[in-house]
């Protein structure tokens, strides 16, 4: 008895230490972003919002932010539709279900750099480097698995007698999908979509290969900033990315909680 409480105490301490280790370096960018000086000095000796003003006014930052947001929205829409269809195929297939699932979730396992190099070679051939189409295609590949996994999970718990009931009441397969299936699996679709959004919004490795100086996402712009210049605006940029990602993932966990309530 006392042995297990002691063990639990040790585990709690351990968990807190890991949490600190994970979070503190991330949180350090927040105070730096509010620094009044033009340096990375920590702790800052004066405060101000100058870095945010620069971030939201300087053309290269602002453009890359808008590119990232637009890209994330488009990728979310495409990945959600395709991923939901793939999840249906996986869960409802009579044969090859396991193979399909491994195929569609492969981008989670294949190293990002390998995907990046492969896409780079292919996109060079097809002339997609530095194009919106190239970014959309690349990010969709990376986002798709999150939708597939989330939708497949809710779909496995879906009672197909409901489809039969709807059919007997006069609903065609499409009407049944629209009025019965989709509303019931909506929490899984939503959380898949939110994950897809975040995946696209903060993706950097593949984007570095697809980008051109004329078309850069925010993480790519940040990467060039940190390698080529010493500009604390990046702290403000980091904070913006952090806030957006946290908000979106927070929404994802909310949709999952509401799923258990229904």
């Amino acid at each position, binding site marked *: 008895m006392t042995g297990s409480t002691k063990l639990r105490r040790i585990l709690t301490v351990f968990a807190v230490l890991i949490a600190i280790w994970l979070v503190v370096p991330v949180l350090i960018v927040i105070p730096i972003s509010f620094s009044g000086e033009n340096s990375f000095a920590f702790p800052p000796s004066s405060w101000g919002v100058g870095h945010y003003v620069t971030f939201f006014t300087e053309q290269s930052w602002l453009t890359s932010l808008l590119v990232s947001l637009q890209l994330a929205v488009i990728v979310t829409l495409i990945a959600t539709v395709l991923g939901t269809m793939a999840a249906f195929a996986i869960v409802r297939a009579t044969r090859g279900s396991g193979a399909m699932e491994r195929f569609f979730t492969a981008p989670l396992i294949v190293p990002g750099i390998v995907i990046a190099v492969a896409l780079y070679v292919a996109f060079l051939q097809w002339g997609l480097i530095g194009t919106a189409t190239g970014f959309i295609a690349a990010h969709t590949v990376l986002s798709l698995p999150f939708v597939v996994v989330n939708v497949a999970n809710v779909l496995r718990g879906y009672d197909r007698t409901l489809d039969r009931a709807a059919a*007997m009441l006069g609903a065609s397969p499409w009407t049944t999908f629209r009025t019965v299936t989709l509303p019931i699996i909506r929490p899984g679709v939503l959380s898949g979509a939110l994950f897809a959004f975040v995946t696209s919004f903060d993706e950097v490795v593949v984007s570095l290969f697809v980008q051109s100086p004329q078309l850069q996402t925010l993480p790519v712009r940040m990467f060039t900033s940190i390698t080529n210049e010493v500009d604390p605006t990046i702290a403000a940029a980091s904070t913006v990315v952090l806030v957006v990602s946290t908000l979106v993932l927070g929404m994802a966990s909310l949709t999952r909680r509401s799923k258990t309530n*229904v």
Partner: protein
Amino acid sequence: MSDNTTGASIEVAGLTKVFKNTTRPAVDAIDLDVRPGEFMTLLGPSGSGKTTVLNMIAGFEDVTEGRILLDGQDIAQRPPYKRNLGMVFQDYALFPHMTAAENVAFPLQRRKIGREETTRRVAEALDVVRLGQHGDRLPSQLSGGQQQRVALARAIVFRPRALLLDEPLGALDKRLRDSLQLEISRLHSELGITFVFVTHDQEEALALSDRIAVFRDGHIEQVGTPTDLYETPASHFVATFLGDSNVFTGTVRDGVLDTGESELRCSGPDGPSTLIVRPERMTIGHNGSSGQNRLTGTVTDVVYQGAFRRIHVRFDSGRPGMIRDGTDAPSVTAGERVDVSWDVAHGVVVADRDDAVVTT
């Protein structure tokens, strides 16, 4: 619902279902006539094909061979959503994201019925199942019995001419089952539409049905009224599946069944046969009349059941038997030697088939 007092006729002819990767048909060339407005029960053990037949009528299973005629029209190739049949499922199948009223409104919306009429008919249908006050509840806020009543309302609100019921009482406890059974019976007589009811529960079947089709191994063993099936079962299987029976096997010659140990008078054609006598047709004691068969045996157990007693005996032949007796009859105790007798007219003779062995 005065425009709908007659139900549809459902005629099934040569209906066969062979599932993929199997050779033995799950349903083997079945013929069945369900008359307009009839309460027809498909009764049988699990795997006997009754549910497969219902699923083919509903359109959930492809028909391997044969025809399904709804009012004379072959619907075998029509998708379920174009068959216009009501259906009630064992696990209710209510849409969890819709309230009771929205569930009931669903089939009306599919039929593009106006908002006002929808509201009126939803209220009407919920009243019919006495859930008028619960329209705004979600299924998760209703009890099992209430959910099944919502499902019933949803299945009849669009005035189908036939209602299919797939073990609708199977998921409910005993008390709820009895009250919902009454509800279904009342609905049937009020609506006047055809009911096709699938169950493995013989008491349910006897209590509700106009006629019962007893299924076994993909065949129909017998179709008849509850009285027909109980009083004159056509086979050993039907006799033992519906109610308790005393069973004597042997060979009939000139109106006498020779079991090897005793000779029992009966009426049936010569040949290897089984004599079936219902427990309530047997009495303890013997009045000496010539119209009776008599066996002697030893009481092994007496079970008091309130309204009656069940007396288990072992006949001198070693065969077990069961007698159902009123509680005001003279009492007997285990170990007592008794005469057991029954009127010859109450014995039913069925011809033996080599597959007549039953396990229930």
